[in-house]
């Protein structure tokens, strides 16, 4: 696509810096310190889950832990706890692996379920807009901040974790890492090895909130008002 006015713009930056324009050969220096790798670097997966659980209190998020056998039961309870009637979920390949495919099929009697469908295009958004509950898997989970990382794509729309009133993230235990450092390293390495990054990478940390009125914390503004994380032991 078009790039306009670049040369004159960048030439003048180089001139102000008092040197010729640099177009190649710049390497990132070796930074003198790297404190980001020290955070939780000795913690086991179970210890990281404890950190995540504690952080959930800070970010106003309900934390649940279960295994594959009981996942469907816990998921159903959570949806009912949110008084959810209309559900939108990603059509993730993991749905089958974790037994959610059958749940979504059988739950059709109790709930109005929509799995993200690339052929339905904008209809997906319309559905997400009126949904009570959005459900996705977490691709990388950051223990320190209590964050689920979503690589949005045609199976996992951006709207699912954004437009419904409540949001449930299913967190396979093996996706948990200490902090954002491990996620951004993965993104960097994927880029270097030639994999195109998702059109949208969403780092989601609990429900939306604002402190814009007299610095009072209001939980739930444009995004979900309530959020639950369900950690599933592998």
């Amino acid at each position, binding site marked *: *696509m*078009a*790039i*306009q*006015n*670049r040369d004159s*713009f*960048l030439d*003048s*930056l180089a001139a102000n*810096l*008092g040197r010729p324009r*640099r177009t190649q050969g710049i390497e*990132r220096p070796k930074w*003198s*310190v790297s404190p*980001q790798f020290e*955070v939780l670097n000795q913690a086991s997966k179970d210890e990281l889950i404890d950190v995540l659980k504690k952080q959930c209190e800070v*970010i106003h998020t309900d934390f649940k832990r279960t295994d594959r056998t009981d996942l469907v039961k816990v998921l159903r309870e959570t949806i009912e706890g949110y008084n959810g009637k209309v559900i939108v979920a990603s059509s993730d390949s993991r749905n089958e692996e974790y037994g959610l495919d059958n749940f979504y099929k059988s739950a059709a009697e109790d709930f109005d379920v929509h799995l993200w469908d*690339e052929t339905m*295009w*904008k209809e*997906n*958004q319309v559905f997400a807009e009126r949904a009570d509950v959005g459900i996705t898997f977490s691709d990388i989970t950051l223990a320190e901040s209590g*964050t689920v990382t979503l690589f*949005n794509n*045609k199976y996992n*729309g*951006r*709207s699912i974790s*954004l*437009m419904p009133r409540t949001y449930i993230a299913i967190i396979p235990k093996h996706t948990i890492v200490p902090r*954002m*450092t491990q996620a*951004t*390293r993965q*993104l*960097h390495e994927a*880029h270097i090895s030639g994999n195109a*990054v998702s*059109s*949208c*990478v*969403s780092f*989601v*940390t609990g429900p*939306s*909130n*604002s402190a*814009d*009125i*007299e*610095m*009072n914390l*209001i939980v*739930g*503004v*444009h*995004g*979900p008002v309530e959020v639950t994380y369900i950690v599933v032991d592998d």
Partner: protein
Amino acid sequence: MSIKISNAPYNERVQEGVKNDFMRKAVASAQGRFRSGRQKQADELGNWEDWRTLGEEIRTHTLRNIDYYLEILSENVSKRGGNVFFAKTAEEANEYIQHIIKKKNAKKVVKSKSMVTEEIGLNDALAEVGAEVVESDLGEWILQLDEDLPSHIVTPALHKNKEQVRETFAVKKGYEQSDKPEELASFARQQLRQEFLAADVGITGCNFAVAESGAVTFVTNEGNARMVTTIPDTQISVMGMERIVPTWEELDILVSLLTRAAVGQKLTSYITSITGTRLEGESDGPEEYHLVIVDNGRSKILGTEFQSALHCIRCAACINVCPVYRHVGGHAYGSIYPGPIGAVITPLLDGYEDHKELPYASSLCGACTEVCPVKIPLHEQLIRHRQIIVERENKGNKMEKLAMKGFAKWASSPAAYKLSAAAARPALQPWSKNEMIKSGPGPLKGWTINRDFPAPAKQTFRSWYKNRQKGREV
């Protein structure tokens, strides 16, 4: 609007701030909360100084090679289907965006909070071409409805109380509920949801662009930037040219510093990185994407002693510890960038002429420098501004020069000094009460308008010392 937000003289703006009791209380309380939040996060990490060092090293390297990284960024955005426009001036940026709006025949534009679009006066430019602009950040929406201006770069409506917000919603939008913040926010959610769904174009700022892959990142809590980048088919991101990192790995560091220093959070609710247009088969995100990279005076700062001011990541930590901001509030600075960083960059971006008082809106206590997550030597830069204003630009007041000359002569004569030190107390007696002067005469008046001045002591230091040596009362 542009970077300059008021034509009133500096002293009037300060007076207005000092007299606004609600604003001062709100600012003091907000500063307290922001500070303790930031401090808690810094303490929890245990090696905050290492993080700051790393932040500074990344910003220094990136700015020194900014032409290189901007070229890579533009290549990558273009590869992913985005258009990139380099705008030397605010006018060029606005004209380009106006052109898109006209081409798309857009009637409604939703925006997420962005300081750079305030700086270039984009909303006025959009109104010129007949587009309705809706600000979707809660604080910005309140200000837009009330036709008011931001007073803080992170919480723009800090100076308003909930009764005022309720009143604004009632008058402008027919709101009928209470002034409970939750009810106000819930009303905003309903109203703005309709605006998002009806919008033709979404406009955002940019916290950091990742050069290596062309991702543009937004750091938010409310989720409005996600709505703006998910729903409309056309999307425009406007970035100050310095808001860039080499790779995803540096994004981690700067985001971690920003959320901690700005609001005391480990991460905000949403860190969202979008790259170009939506891909084949995706239902969300724009089919047409534009990235507008804005200079608007920034390049003049490159290669000067103020270059590190461009390292700023707009966290407002300096604003949240500033004793001057605490008393005068954001509007007194007359710039959309208030506080210490505003006092440093406003004269650089917009010239000394309209902003020559700003470098003096500081006690030079250095608290700003101490908290800056990327170690900008803010108070030292304020001193340099003062030197430049007085010496190089030769804008020192003539009366002041004369007074300084007189002072030099008087202070270098011991007899004259001694005489006036002894005469000061009786001379100021008529204005003194309980050892304080609340409303002083002549040159003292300028000081006592806003604060009290201690009355001269009963005895001079020299006579006190002499007496003490003789073993008398001390």
